[in-house]
């Protein structure tokens, strides 16, 4: 099969084609490895786990962001067009800059906040299955960046936190073990937060883990409104 890859050498962007012998069961990632190992050692791409867990290999395949390791070549039309993710700065070939992405993720405090943790005598934090169900789906995010790459709000505003960071914010705000969501709500209520979302719902369409980032953003909006009302009345 023909692989048409959009490459970038640091200065110029250009297309390059490779002919890859494929067989049933082969993924796009395996083909990229084949190209790098046998045809062109200068081809750069990011990959790690090869089983849809790490989220490193997200690229645009035939126009849609997908995990290269989970995309079967047999399901695609010839030629297969592979491009780096949109809305990210391209560093080289298929490798994009995730620094801003993770900085935004860090900004929403993606961890449980409690003031009663004693590491000398740790206690189990009990949680019911119902409480777990409130956020479980959102905890499956692998930070691949596919949602951000199709987000129209992220395309026009570099400051926008983006669906992935907002999913992380909701995941911890909805966790019954978290005891201080106020800081997080302040951040997501700011001008770079949930109100930037245009509700295009493109993020939910492309998420490889089907975690509905668009829904998380809307549920966060509810929390932001409740927080604002409480703040207004100093409740």
């Amino acid at each position, binding site marked *: 099969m023909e692989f048409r890859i959009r490459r970038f050498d640091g200065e110029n962007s250009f297309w390059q084609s490779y002919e890859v012998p494929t067989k049933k069961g082969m993924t796009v990632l395996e083909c990229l490895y084949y190209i790098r190992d046998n045809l062109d050692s200068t081809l750069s791409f990011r990959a790690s786990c090869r089983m849809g867990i790490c989220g490193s290999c997200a690229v645009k395949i035939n126009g849609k962001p997908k995990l290269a390791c989970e995309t079967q070549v047999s399901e695609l039309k010839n030629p297969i067009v592979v491009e780096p993710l949109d809305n990210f700065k391209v560093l080289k070939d298929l490798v994009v800059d995730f620094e801003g992405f993770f900085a935004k993720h860090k900004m929403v405090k993606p961890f449980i906040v409690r003031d009663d943790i004693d590491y000398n005598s740790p206690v189990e934090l009990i949680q019911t299955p119902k409480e777990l169900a409130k956020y479980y789906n959102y905890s499956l995010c692998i930070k691949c960046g596919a949602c951000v790459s*199709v987000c129209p709000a992220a395309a026009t505003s570099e400051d926008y936190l983006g669906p992935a960071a907002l999913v992380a914010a909701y995941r911890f705000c909805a966790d019954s073990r978290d005891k201080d969501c106020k800081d997080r709500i302040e951040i997501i209520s700011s001008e770079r937060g949930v109100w930037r979302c245009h509700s295009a719902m493109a993020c939910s369409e492309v998420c490889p883990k089907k975690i509905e980032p668009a829904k998380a953003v809307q549920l966060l909006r509810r929390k932001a409104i409740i927080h604002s009302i409480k703040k207004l009345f100093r409740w």
Partner: protein
Amino acid sequence: MRIMKWFKPVSLQDLAFAFQRLTGFILAMYLILHLAFLSTLSDPLTYESLIAITVSPTFLPLDSLLVLCGIYHGLNGIRVIIHELGYLHEHRKALLVICAILTVIAWLYATWVMYEVV
């Protein structure tokens, strides 16, 4: 231009979003022109002559397209509001199809009424 990325749909949801922006822009432009023109009118006769042009057979298809923009923008807006309230995200595709069907039905009916009246 970054704004052009709004019009590079990869899914039906993106397409609906792009059309929402496009129809919104058309309706806003129409409203501005409409108000600007009306504010320059000084006598009823000029107004009557304008109305006569807008209901003429050559102008009516454009009116019909404008109605299509209005209906789509309104119905799709309601769909987006439902999602923004946090509901029916899992059924977004079905809701989009229902919205498209309702748009076409309402548009055909409105066009039929417009031609009937004329």
